[in-house]
Structure formats: structure tokens, C-alpha cells
């Protein structure tokens, strides 16, 4: 029998894979993809709680999160293209001077 903890466990595993991807990769595109993975993990948790709680509010919030993800990808890829135009590379190591 699959219960709420199983779905939450899947969500945690997916989130950690995404966080690990952000930390170990240097390609800006793949970092953005890992952020999408983390967002999906959050969506799974929201839908699981909503479904097991018996209300639909969580699913509505997931729809909002889809729109926010679409905006994030649009602006993020715009930034990546602008960065590529300046340094001809999408490696984060090219931008280490931003580290403050």
C-alpha cells in the first residue's frame, strides 16, 4: 500500500538530486535543469499533501508554480544567452568574479 510518506520520500530524493546537480555542475543550462527538478519535487509534495488531505487547493498552487517555472525558465535562458554573448561560454567558472 502506497501512502503519503512514499510520495514525500520520492519528493525528497528528487529535491536532493536537483540540489546536488546545482552544486556539482558547471554548465549554466544543466544548473537551470536541476532547478527545474527541485521545483518538480516541490510540486510532488504539494499534490501529495493535497490529495491525501482531500482538498484541491494544493493542486491549484501547483498550477501557479507551473506558471512561475515557465517565467523563470524564460528569463533564465535569456540571461544565459546574454552571458554566452559576452563570454562565448556557459560555464559558471567564467563568471567567478561575480562571487563578491
Amino acid at each position: 500500500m502506497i501512502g503519503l510518506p512514499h510520495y514525500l520520500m520520492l519528493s525528497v530524493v528528487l529535491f536532493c538530486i536537483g540540489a546536488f546537480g546545482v552544486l556539482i555542475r558547471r554548465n549554466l543550462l544543466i544548473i537551470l535543469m536541476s532547478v527545474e527538478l527541485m521545483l518538480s519535487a516541490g510540486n510532488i509534495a504539494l499534490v501529495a499533501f493535497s490529495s491525501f488531505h482531500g482538498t484541491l487547493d494544493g493542486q491549484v498552487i501547483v498550477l501557479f508554480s507551473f506558471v512561475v517555472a515557465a517565467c523563470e525558465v524564460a528569463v533564465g535562458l535569456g540571461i544565459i544567452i546574454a552571458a554566452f554573448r559576452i563570454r562565448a561560454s556557459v560555464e559558471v567558472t567564467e563568471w567567478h568574479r561575480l562571487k563578491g
Partner: protein
Amino acid sequence: MESILFYCFAALTVGLALVVIVQPNPVGAAVALVGAFFGVAGIFVLLQAHFVAIMQLLLYAGAIMVFFVFVVMLLNLEPRSIRFRTLTGSRLVRSTAAIYLAAILLLSMLGALRMNKMPAVAATDGTLEAVGRLLLTDYVVPFEILSVLLLVAIVGAVAMGKREL
């Protein structure tokens, strides 16, 4: 039956997510990400969130991934494998932070698993009608604000794409 499907979709999602973060070639990572999103859509169907599952396929596996593949094609990148140095050295500290986070979350989840007093699945079908009704009654103000957010994102993306910033 439900548990078999759950484990299939979960294995698909986690396996392809791992492929995303180890794949040297960005195109391969994008294709693996599409597969992972299909797995997540299957999980949503198992949770009876049908409308969210359809939107996951249309928005993520459709629109967002087309965007990713388009940019990968535009930038014309060569694959670059992860060097071992990335996993050691000063990055080790940050990776350890991720592993620490994973351990904490997994331990708390194991604690939750031990609670065998789980609520039963209530019959809530996330159909288009039910979700749409909620979206246009209780959540109508956030729904309208989202359209402003989309407008801001369009203007921002066009501004970032200009020849000189």
C-alpha cells in the same frame, strides 16, 4: 497494482533525474529531463490529479523543454564531461552540505514512515472542472496576478535578448 505503478514511475523519475545531472551533453540532459517529467506526470495521475498531470505534460514536457532544446541548439555547445576535480577539493564542502541536507531530510522522512497511522486517501478527483472552479472562485486574484507575472517575464526575456544590454 498501484504500488507497482508507483515504483515504476518513481524509478523512472529518479533514474532520469540522475542522468540529467551526470550527462555531459546538454542535449542528452534535456531529453532525460523530458523523461523525468513524464514520470512526474505519472505520479500525479496516481495521486488523482489528472488536470495537473496534463498541464505537467503540456507545460513542462512540451513548452519548457522545447525552450531548453531551442537554446541548446542556439548556443551550439560541445559536450564536456564532469571532471573528477569537481567532486573533490573546495567543492567537497558544498557537496557535503547537500549530502547533509539529504541525510537530514531522509531521517525525518524515515521518522514519518514509522508512523503507521496514515490518513486514508480521500476521494478527490483533480478534474478540470473541479480545479477550474476553484481557480476562478477562491483563487481568482492570484490567477489574475499571474497574468501580470507572465507579462513581466515576457518583457524581461525580450530585454535580456536585446543586442546590447
